[in-house]
């Protein structure tokens, strides 16, 4: 078991030394493994449904038995970045929420949450979609790639990622994961786009910092290098 990788809510981690043992405070119940980093701890909290603002609203209820057996089964297999996860997904849950808060893949950003900005862009079977406005249950059998799945396994950046760095594309960086996914999806299907084609392919991604020309130059640079 990999105890150093990202926190995976589907794994039963061995418990670290009980908090009670450390603190000597009687019968306090240990509730998290101690080896998790602060970042992973935060993810763990969100995933386990401990009260944090809005997400508790969505996930706090225990899985209700389906009222009707013909409705979708909550437990589903979801293939993200080549790995199949078995996740409990509410019928009204969107893919953006599932990847961020159940799988801990927080690279995908939620901006507008209504199909109007592109920060949440992921690929499904190679095509870009807005994960904020896609029901996760629709993704059964699809191959989903999030921004975490773009770089090579050894960490080598994809040419699009490298070109964005070289062209100083990200300013605040909030739109960047979506821009990366849109750029990679374009070059996967059309390795030699014209500038106009690239402009159209990237047009579903807003950048509030207005770095459009940088992203466009990045995509064209990556296209020349691939």
């Amino acid at each position, binding site marked *: 078991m990999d105890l150093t990788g990202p926190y995976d809510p589907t794994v039963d981690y061995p418990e670290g030394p009980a908090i009670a043992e450390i603190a000597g405070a009687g019968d306090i119940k240990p509730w998290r493994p101690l080896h998790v980093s602060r970042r992973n701890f935060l993810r763990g909290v969100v995933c386990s449904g401990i009260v944090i603002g*809005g997400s508790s*609203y*969505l996930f706090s209820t225990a899985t209700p038995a*389906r*009222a*009707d057996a*013909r*409705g*979708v089964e909550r437990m589903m297999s979801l293939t993200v970045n080549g790995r199949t996860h078995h996740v409990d997904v*509410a*019928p*009204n849950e*969107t893919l953006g*929420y599932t990847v961020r808060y159940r799988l801990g893949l927080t690279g995908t950003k*939620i901006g507008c*949450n*209504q*199909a*109007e900005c*592109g920060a949440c*862009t992921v690929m499904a079977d190679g*095509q*870009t*979609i*807005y994960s*904020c*406005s*896609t*029901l996760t*249950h*629709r993704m059964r059998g699809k191959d989903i790639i999030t921004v975490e799945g773009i770089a090579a396994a050894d960490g080598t950046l994809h040419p699009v990622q490298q070109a964005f760095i070289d062209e100083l594309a990200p300013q605040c960086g909030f739109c960047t994961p979506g821009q990366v996914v*849109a750029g990679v999806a374009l070059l996967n299907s059309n390795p030699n786009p014209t500038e106009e084609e690239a402009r*159209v*392919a990237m*047009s*579903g991604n807003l950048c509030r910092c207005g770095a459009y020309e940088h992203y466009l130059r990045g995509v064209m640079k990556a296209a020349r290098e691939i």
Partner: protein
Amino acid sequence: MSDVMHNFELYQPDTVQGAADLLGEFDDAWVIAGAKDSLGWFKDRVKQPSVVVDIGGIEELSGIAATDDGGLYIGATTTLTDVIENPLVREKYPILALSASKVASPQIRNAGTIGGNISQDTRCVYYRSGFPCYRAEGNTCYANTPTAMNRDHALFEVSRCVAVTPSDTAPAMVALGASMVIRRKGEDIEVPASEYFIGPEIDITRMTVLEHGDILLGIRLPGTWANARHYFEKAADRNTWDFALVSITMVAKMAGSAIEDAAMVCGGVQCTPRRLTEVEDVIRGEVPGPEVETLVRRVASRGAQPLNFNHFKIPLMESLAARAVRSLT
């Protein structure tokens, strides 16, 4: 946060029959195909159906095939991207590929369906925000008051409601003489596009003839306008995401340099796509040129009744119609 949708039971039937059975069983069931229009309603919590039937996984509903009369049949859940990229569509009805390519954004076109695009609800900002207006079965129109924001609203054929058709592909359906194949109570019926889209005088709560329980199976495009000359232009605030302020769709057949026949349809000015029959009459048999354009401008918006903030749509509409005709020279 607008992200948290109400709870609903989700069904994903594999067959049209399965979907029809579910719709027959639940009075409160809502159909989603690409869900791009529907999730907006749900996220804003304006519509909260307790049952959602996802027809996007029904194989028999998607795909494009040539028909015997030289036309095409397009399954209702074929995505806009598949319509745009399909070689048959591009060859026979480039006007449809062109208008579909101007819908929303690439990501929305990858998921949104052609059936959903022509069946989507209007975008009147009051109605979409949950105001209890006529269309929402209330007893007033918030868009038709002296101070209302009605820049996006209608010029023609208003009846209490002044909302417009939002779809970029609907005008092409009317221009091409398409018909919609609908499964209604176990039977398949075919409705011409000119009757599929309905205005407020017929039913103020719906944009199309679809009733609860109906499933749009597909769209039949007759061979009539295959390979015709075409023109599409959409005027919107931004090129991506924004709905048309006014759009113009034209197909035309030429006899030498004269216009033998043409169909011109305008979007964004009325609750349904508006066929510009007067323009068609003016240009039929004529050789396009400055005189014809002047006449076109004169008749294109005849009868328009602007609201407080949408006068600009009148010259816009006239110019787009004239440019469409100019494209034939």
